C-alpha cells in the first residue's frame, strides 16, 4: 500500500506528493450542511436586536418625488425609522467596475424607472416593516416616459469600445457581400430576461466597535467590501463582508440595493438591520438581461466558406448607468472570414439598469450568429456541422492572436457522433410521430476565459492539516470543493487534510465569481500559495504550534501573460418535438460537448454545464419579461408569470467534454459557468426549423408564434 505516503506528514518536513485529486468526482464540502438545512444563508443568520428593513419602490417610470408621508408610518407599531432621500447618508461615486449610478440610492428626488427604491421602512419585525412600507404614501410629479426598446430608437448611440475587444473592422464587408453568391441577412430579437436565482438577495449590516460588519448574499465579498467602503467613505480596513452560503447568483449578486440600504439604516439607527428582498423586488431591483435586436449578415462562397460576417446589435440600458450587452464577441472569434465587422448600440430608456446575466453577451449573441449559420447551411446546402468545420480559424479571425487552446472541432465531431447526427435527413418537416413533428439542430458557443489577480494563503498546522484562505465565493458552483482539490494536489496531500475558508473580505484581495473566471483566478492564487508554503516547510524542522503560512499573489504573473485568444467552446445538439395542435415545443434530448480547459471536479462541473444548458432551454422556450407600455412596469414579476424551466420541461440532458489543454495558467482552468448557455437557444430554434420549416428569429419560441407561423414543411 502506498497509502501512507499519501498522508500529510506531521513532522513539518517536505510532504510527499499525493496528487490526483483534481479530475476526480467529489461531493461538495458543504453538502451535508445543505441537505440538513444547517447551511445559513444571509437571511437566516440571527442577531441580537435585529431590525428589519422593507423596500418601498417607485411606481412611476420617470419623474420626481414631491412628498412622502413618513409621519404616518413612523407612528405605526414597531416602526423604528424611514430612510429616504431627505435623510439618507450621502454616498460617494463607487461601483464594482467604475462608478455605478445604480448604487446612488436615495440621493435625490429623481425617479429613473418603475421599481427604483425610494425609501426603506425599518421596524422590529419583518411584518411591521412590510406594513409600514405598504402604508407609506409617496407622491410623484410624473413625466412622460419611454420604455419601449427597438434597435432604431433615436436615443441609440454607439457603445464605448470594450477595453480588450474594440469593434471589429476586418476587410471590406460591403465588397465581400456584394460579390458573394450566397448571403443571409436577418434580424433576431431576444427579450428582457431575469436571473431568477432561487435565493432572493438579502443583507444584514451592523456597527460593532467602530467596525461595519455585513452578512451578505454576493458573488465576491472582497470586491463588495471595497465598493461599500468607497461608497460610504470608510476605510476598507473597518469593513468586513461575508457571504458563506449564497443561493445562486448568475451575475445578479454584486452590490445589491438591499446591502446599500441596510448599511444606511444600520448607520442611522445604530442597530443591526437586515433587508431581505421579496421575489417581486428581486425582479425590479437586481438587474436583468436587456432585450436585444441583432442584424446578422453572412456571406459565403458556394461551398459555404465565409467571406463576410457583419454583426450589429442593439440593447437597452437605463438613464443612470451605461451597461453594454456585448453580443458580438462570438463573431470575433468563432469563424474565419475575409471580412468581419461588429457594431454595438446602446439605447438608454426609462428602465432598470441591466447587468451581467449568465453568459452575458454570449447567450443572446450566439442565438443570432448560430441561427444565421444554420440559415447559411440551408442556403448553401451544406450540413450545419460541416459548415462550421469548414470555417474553423487557425488564429483569432480578427485579432490574429494565437488561441491558447481551441478544440471546437473536436466538440462538433464527437458531439455529432454521440448524438447520431449522421443519420439526419437535412430536409425540414420529414419526421412525424402522430401530431408531433420532430427535428434536430446544432449550434456552437464560446465564452472568454482567463484569470484575474487574486491572493490566497495556506497555513500548515502541526496536526497535519492545511487551512486555505482565499476570498472566493461559492454561489453553488462548487468553488469551495474545487479549490480544496487544487490545493491538495499543489501541496501533495490528500484533500481530506485541507480545510477551506472562503467568502470573507478579510481573506484578502480576490476576484469575483463572475465572467467564468472565479475558479481559474482563485486556484492560480492557491497554487502560488502552495508553492510558497512548500518552500517554507522545506526550511523548517517541524511545524511550530501557530503553523507556517505560505502566500500567493498572482498580480504580477497575470500582468506578464502574453496576449492570446482564450475561450471555452461548446457544440450543442438538440432534438425537439413540436405539437401541430397546440404549437408546444418539447425538447426531447440535448447533448453539449465542451472544450473548457481542465475540469477540476467532474461531478460539479457537469452539473454546472447541464444547469447552463437548462437555462438556455428556458431562454429558448419560456423566459420573457413583459412590460406595460403605459406604466413602464414589468407585469410578470413572479414565477407564475415569468416561467423558468421546471423539472417537467427538461428532457435528458447530457454534458461532456473533450480534452482541452490550456497551458496559459498553472491550473489550466477555463471555467464552465457561462459556456453552457452559449448556443443552446440557437440549437433549439434550429431544431424547431428542422421540425417545422419555419425560422423563429424571435425568442422565446412561444406556442402562439409556432401556431401562427404554421407548419409549411410538414409532409
Amino acid at each position: 500500500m502506498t497509502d501512507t505516503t499519501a498522508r500529510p506528514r506531521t513532522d513539518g518536513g517536505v510532504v510527499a506528493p499525493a496528487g490526483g485529486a483534481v479530475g476526480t468526482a467529489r461531493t461538495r464540502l458543504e453538502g451535508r450542511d445543505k441537505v440538513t438545512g444547517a447551511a445559513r444563508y444571509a437571511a437566516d443568520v440571527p442577531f441580537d436586536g435585529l431590525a428589519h428593513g422593507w423596500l418601498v419602490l417607485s411606481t412611476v417610470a420617470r419623474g420626481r418625488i414631491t412628498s412622502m408621508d413618513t409621519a404616518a408610518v413612523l407612528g405605526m407599531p414597531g416602526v423604528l425609522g424611514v430612510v429616504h432621500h431627505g435623510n439618507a447618508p450621502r454616498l460617494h461615486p463607487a461601483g464594482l467596475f467604475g462608478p455605478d449610478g445604480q448604487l446612488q440610492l436615495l440621493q435625490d428626488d429623481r425617479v429613473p424607472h418603475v421599481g427604483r427604491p425610494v425609501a426603506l421602512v425599518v421596524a422590529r419585525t419583518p411584518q411591521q416593516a412590510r406594513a409600514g412600507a405598504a402604508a407609506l404614501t409617496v407622491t410623484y410629479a410624473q413625466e412622460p416616459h419611454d420604455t419601449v426598446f427597438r434597435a432604431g430608437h433615436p436615443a441609440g448611440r454607439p457603445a464605448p469600445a470594450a477595453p480588450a475587444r474594440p469593434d471589429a473592422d476586418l476587410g471590406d464587408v460591403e465588397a465581400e457581400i456584394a460579390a458573394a453568391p450566397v448571403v443571409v441577412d436577418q434580424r433576431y430579437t431576444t427579450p428582457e430576461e431575469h436571473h431568477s436565482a432561487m435565493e432572493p438577495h438579502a443583507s444584514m449590516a451592523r456597527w460593532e466597535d467602530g467596525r461595519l460588519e455585513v452578512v451578505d448574499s454576493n458573488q465576491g465579498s472582497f470586491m463588495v467590501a471595497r465598493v461599500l467602503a468607497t461608497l460610504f467613505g470608510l476605510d476598507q480596513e473597518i469593513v468586513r463582508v461575508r457571504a458563506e452560503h449564497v443561493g445562486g447568483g448568475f451575475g445578479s449578486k454584486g452590490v445589491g440595493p438591499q446591502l446599500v440600504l441596510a448599511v444606511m439604516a444600520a448607520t442611522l439607527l445604530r442597530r443591526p438591520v437586515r433587508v431581505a428582498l421579496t421575489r417581486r423586488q428581486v425582479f425590479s431591483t437586481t438587474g436583468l438581461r436587456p432585450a436585444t435586436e441583432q442584424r446578422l449578415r453572412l456571406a459565403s462562397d458556394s461551398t459555404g466558406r465565409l467571406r463576410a460576417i457583419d454583426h450589429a446589435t442593439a440593447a437597452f440600458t437605463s438613464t443612470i448607468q451605461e451597461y453594454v450587452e456585448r453580443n458580438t464577441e462570438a463573431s470575433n472569434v468563432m469563424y474565419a472570414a475575409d471580412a468581419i465587422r461588429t457594431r454595438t448600440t446602446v439605447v438608454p430608456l426609462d428602465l432598470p439598469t441591466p447587468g451581467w446575466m449568465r453568459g452575458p453577451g454570449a447567450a443572446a449573441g450566439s442565438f443570432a450568429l448560430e441561427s444565421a449559420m444554420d440559415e447559411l447551411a440551408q442556403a448553401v446546402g451544406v450540413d450545419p456541422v460541416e459548415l462550421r468545420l469548414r470555417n474553423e480559424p487557425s488564429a483569432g479571425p480578427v485579432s490574429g492572436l494565437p488561441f491558447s487552446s481551441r478544440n471546437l472541432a473536436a466538440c462538433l465531431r464527437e458531439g455529432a457522433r454521440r448524438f447520431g447526427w449522421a443519420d439526419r435527413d437535412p430536409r425540414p418537416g420529414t419526421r412525424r410521430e402522430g401530431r408531433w413533428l420532430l427535428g434536430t439542430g446544432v449550434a456552437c458557443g464560446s465564452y472568454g476565459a482567463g484569470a484575474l489577480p487574486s491572493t490566497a494563503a495556506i497555513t500548515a498546522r502541526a496536526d497535519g492539516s492545511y487551512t486555505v484562505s482565499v476570498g472566493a465565493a461559492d454561489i453553488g458552483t462548487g468553488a469551495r470543493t474545487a479549490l480544496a482539490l487544487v490545493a491538495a494536489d499543489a501541496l501533495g496531500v490528500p484533500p481530506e487534510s485541507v480545510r477551506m475558508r472562503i467568502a470573507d473580505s478579510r481573506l484578502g484581495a480576490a476576484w469575483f465569481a463572475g465572467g467564468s473566471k472565479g475558479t481559474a483566478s482563485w486556484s492560480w492564487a492557491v497554487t502560488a500559495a502552495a508553492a510558497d508554503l512548500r518552500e517554507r516547510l522545506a526550511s523548517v524542522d517541524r511545524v511550530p504550534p501557530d503553523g507556517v503560512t505560505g502566500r500567493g499573489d498572482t498580480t504580477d504573473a497575470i500582468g506578464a501573460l502574453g496576449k492570446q485568444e482564450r475561450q471555452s467552446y461548446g457544440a450543442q445538439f438538440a432534438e425537439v418535438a413540436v405539437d401541430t395542435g397546440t404549437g408546444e415545443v418539447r425538447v426531447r434530448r440535448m447533448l453539449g460537448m465542451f472544450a473548457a480547459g481542465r475540469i477540476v471536479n467532474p461531478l460539479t462541473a457537469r452539473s454546472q454545464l447541464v444547469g447552463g444548458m437548462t437555462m438556455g432551454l428556458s431562454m429558448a422556450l419560456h423566459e420573457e419579461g413583459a412590460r406595460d407600455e403605459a406604466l413602464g412596469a414589468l407585469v410578470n414579476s413572479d414565477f407564475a408569470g415569468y416561467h423558468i424551466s421546471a423539472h417537467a420541461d427538461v428532457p435528458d440532458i447530457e454534458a461532456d467534454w473533450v480534452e482541452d489543454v490550456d497551458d496559459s495558467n498553472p491550473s489550466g482552468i477555463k471555467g464552465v459557468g457561462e459556456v453552457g448557455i452559449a448556443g443552446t437557444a440557437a440549437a433549439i430554434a434550429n431544431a424547431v426549423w428542422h421540425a417545422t420549416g419555419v425560422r423563429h428569429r424571435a425568442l422565446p419560441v412561444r406556442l402562439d408564434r409556432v401556431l401562427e407561423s404554421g407548419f409549411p414543411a410538414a409532409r
Partner: protein
Amino acid sequence: MRVTLTVNGRRHQADDVWEGESLLYVLRERLGLPGSKNACEQGECGSCTVRLDDVPVCSCLVAAGQAQDRDVVTVEGLADPGTGLAPVQQAFLDAGAVQCGFCTPGLLVATDDLLRHCPQPTDADIREALSGNLCRCTGYEKILDAVRLAAARSGETAGER
C-alpha cells in the same frame, strides 16, 4: 393569537401570531428553523415545502392558524438523530444534486413524500411530482439521479428484509 404545533417531533408555541401570518414565517422567524426557504412567498417555487400531517405543502401558503395542533416536518427533521442522514439526504449528496442548495430543503421534503407514496417511481413520475420545486442551478438531471438512487437503495434494503 397563540399557535401551538408540533415541529419535527417537538411541541412549540408561538405567541402574538398575526392573522395573516404564514406557517413559513412562524418556522423561520419565530421558531428559529430557517431550513425551509422563502423564494417566492406565493406558492410557485416549492422552496418552503414542509410536511403538514402527511401532506407536503408550500408553507408560505399555509396560514399559521391552520397548523394549530398539527404535525409539521421540515428539512431539519428529516435526518434520524440516531442514524445520521435520511436516505434522501444521502442520495442528494452522493448524486451531486445540490448546488447552491437553496431549493434543496423543499426538494428533499417533496422527494421524501414521493418515495413514501411511490417507492419505485418512473422518471415521468419523478419529473411530474417535483415540478412544483424550481431549481435554477442544476438543470434537474442530478436531482433525477438522486431520486432514482434513493429509490434503488430503499429497494435494496426492502429486498433484504
